[in-house]
């Protein structure tokens, strides 16, 4: 059997149904095998789009996303998506073509050392040297990508090796002596954590994307509701706990709510679950949650005490640790009234500092209003993807995510241009769900070519561009911290988004009057096929509240 045909068998054995990619010289054999392999291939318009689509697919479904690219520029175009998947722990496998082995190292046409280039940004990578290894390597790639802390795995296959004839035997196990993720949490530590919870008077549960990755939302909710524990989630964790809810404090961090940030600041116990104490969460490290004992639950031991020392570290899978922790905690029968004072304090912050904005007195659409309208019209019943910037933060603040895998965005790397291709991937994974992309006008243009993919491949995602004519978040920082010197943030002559959508064969709409906003959203959602809605919003609205970079929760402004 040709090695590439074996690859198709391996993909099917791994449960792959959809792949995203673009063919080229060095992966011609792969595409020849794909021709009648019985997999759906979504032919993207740029490899970055294919990479983000694979991420969106993985984030929406929990399955491994797969993207294919050719050697050289095809592979280097994947780099941003690979780095993105690494930062946000997205289970993905990238299969790249490579020049023939006799050309390797000679600067051959379309040769780039993609394993070398991506070494710092992959969970693991494999370069094929013997075609007989290919089946085992494909299975290793999937195993590493989806287990432990998920992440991107790259498999680079020289063109001649991919055409080689190999004896193919289905592979049923992988042997990786150097890779054995810890999944069971230490029982003694879990017991200590339960005791710490029972004696705490000002606890906060701080949940991150790891909860979503572990499929542990139910277990997180059970733990939180086993007493009146206040819960906050990171940007990546949104949906991990059902919002809105009386124990839900909102998102924490740079653009989080005051209630969440102040609660972290005054807490005597923080339970971090699948979260990595990123600088957007902690602000000034020395003043981060200074009074709190920290319980840190994470599947990646390297995250424990990386930024903030943990008093009670528990390494393992969040799902089984949380269910054990809940059981242990319930057995202690702690007195719930010990939290009364804490809740009074939290309620005080909530009342004094709710998330709010001043609506316009005229027809102008405030960006926050746009997100609220999307939430109202959909009833929250949609998968929302976003790009990166102000619109992303407003989505996080004003769209309340009821469950996991309904909020797909680029948190760690902060990749503009992520929204549309990831929505495409999410829609392929979840064809029955309404998939909405909230884009910024600056981000939208970065991967706008994928509209052609959506049209050709009949992927009906609905994109709403929050159009303020600026690189809004950068403008906000220039206004607040750089004396209002607006340097290269005005988008100038942006395209006419309605005409552009139509040129691609999608439907285009525009709305500038807040009275018509909901109707236009409804029409867009009811229109078949891909739709782009140009929503003209206030030009210079700032995203608040905000902890200025490097400052403490106490220093929140706005």
């Amino acid at each position: 059997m040709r090695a590439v045909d074996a690859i198709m068998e391996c993909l099917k054995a791994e449960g792959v149904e959809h792949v995203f990619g673009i063919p080229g010289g060095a992966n011609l054999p792969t595409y020849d095998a794909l021709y009648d392999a019985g997999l759906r291939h979504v032919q993207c318009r740029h490899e970055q789009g294919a990479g983000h689509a694979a991420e969106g697919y993985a984030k929406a479904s929990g399955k491994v996303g797969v993207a294919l690219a050719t050697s050289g520029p095809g592979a280097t175009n994947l780099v941003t998506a690979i780095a993105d998947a690494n930062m946000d722990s997205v289970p993905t496998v990238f299969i790249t073509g490579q020049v023939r082995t006799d050309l390797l190292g000679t600067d051959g046409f379309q040769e780039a050392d993609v394993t070398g280039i991506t070494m710092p940004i992959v969970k693991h990578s494999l370069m094929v040297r013997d075609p007989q290894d290919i089946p085992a390597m494909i299975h290793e790639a999937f195993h590493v990508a989806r287990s432990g802390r998920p992440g991107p795995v790259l498999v680079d296959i020289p063109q001649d090796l991919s055409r080689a004839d190999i004896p193919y035997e289905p592979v049923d196990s992988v042997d990786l002596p150097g890779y054995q993720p810890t999944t069971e949490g230490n029982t003694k530590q879990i017991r200590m954590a339960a005791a710490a919870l029972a004696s705490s008077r000002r606890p906060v549960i701080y949940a991150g994307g790891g909860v979503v990755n572990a499929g542990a939302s139910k277990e997180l909710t059970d733990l939180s509701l086993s007493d009146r524990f206040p819960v906050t989630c990171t940007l990546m964790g949104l949906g991990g706990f059902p919002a809105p809810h009386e124990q839900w404090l909102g998102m924490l961090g740079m653009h989080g709510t005051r209630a969440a940030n102040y609660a972290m600041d005054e807490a005597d116990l923080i339970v971090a679950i699948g979260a990595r104490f990123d600088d957007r969460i902690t602000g000034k490290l020395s003043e981060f949650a200074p009074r709190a004992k920290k319980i840190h639950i994470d599947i990646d031991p390297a995250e424990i005490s990386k930024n903030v020392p943990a008093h009670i570290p528990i390494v393992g899978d969040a799902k089984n640790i949380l269910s054990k922790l809940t059981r242990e905690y319930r057995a202690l029968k702690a007195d719930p009234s010990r939290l009364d004072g804490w809740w009074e304090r939290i309620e005080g912050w909530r009342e004094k500092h709710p998330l709010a904005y001043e609506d316009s007195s005229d027809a102008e659409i405030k960006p926050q209003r746009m997100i609220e309208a999307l939430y109202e019209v959909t009833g929250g019943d949609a998968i929302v993807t976003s790009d990166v910037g102000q619109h992303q933060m407003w989505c996080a603040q004003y769209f309340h995510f009821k469950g996991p895998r309904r909020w797909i965005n680029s948190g760690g790397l902060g990749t503009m241009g992520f929204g549309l291709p990831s929505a495409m991937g999410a829609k392929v994974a979840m064809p029955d769900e309404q998939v909405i992309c909230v884009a910024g006008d600056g981000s939208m243009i970065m991967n706008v070519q994928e509209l052609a993919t959506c049209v050709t491949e009949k992927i009906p995602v609905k994109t709403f561009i929050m159009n303020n004519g600026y690189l809004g978040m950068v403008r906000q920082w220039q206004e607040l911290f750089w004396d209002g010197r607006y340097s290269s943030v005005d988008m100038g002559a942006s395209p006419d988004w309605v005409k552009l959508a139509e040129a691609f064969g999608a439907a285009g709409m525009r709305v500038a009057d807040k009275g018509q906003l909901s109707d236009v959203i409804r029409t867009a959602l009811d229109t078949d096929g891909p739709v782009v809605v140009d929503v003209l919003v206030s030009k210079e609205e700032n995203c608040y509240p905000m902890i200025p970079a490097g400052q403490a929760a106490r220093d929140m402004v706005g």
Partner: protein
Amino acid sequence: MGEPGTKEVLNLDDLQSSGGVHTGRKHILSLLVEHRPGVLARISGLFARRGYNIESLAVGPTDDDSMARITLTVDGAAHPIDQVTKQLHKLVNVIKIRDLEPEEAVARELALFKISADGDTRAQVMQFADIFRGKIVDVSRRSVTVEVTGTDDKIEAFEQMIRPFGLIEMVRTGEIAISRGRSTT
């Protein structure tokens, strides 16, 4: 140290003395790795991008063809060793890591010294070589090359002694180490 996962109950005092913070001494990390192309690049790349400095590095085969041994020394005063080993553990090709405690390991390094020596000083240089149990491996009319093995302290001491004669060149292998007793490194 070096095992992933939470084995024992830790409190903050333990944490601050063992991990996350600096130990203040030299650490010899002995890594058993898959003998494959690119493994060394992954390790050196990890050190470079996380800002860790490698003091010395030695790579060689083991009794098992599929494995190689990498011995590196890292300054525990400058880097959080616990974080270094955890990050190394994340590399799939790294099978095993041991942070060898000085008292439970034998560490050796080989160094070659090319020392300027003519008729008058040659005898003195040879005398020092003798004291340090060095071997004369090459001699010319104006130089002597001495091979010295030992701990890095011994090699540094020898360097100090012969420097006044005129050290032309020095080449060191970097330390390798093996655990004491019956158990494997």
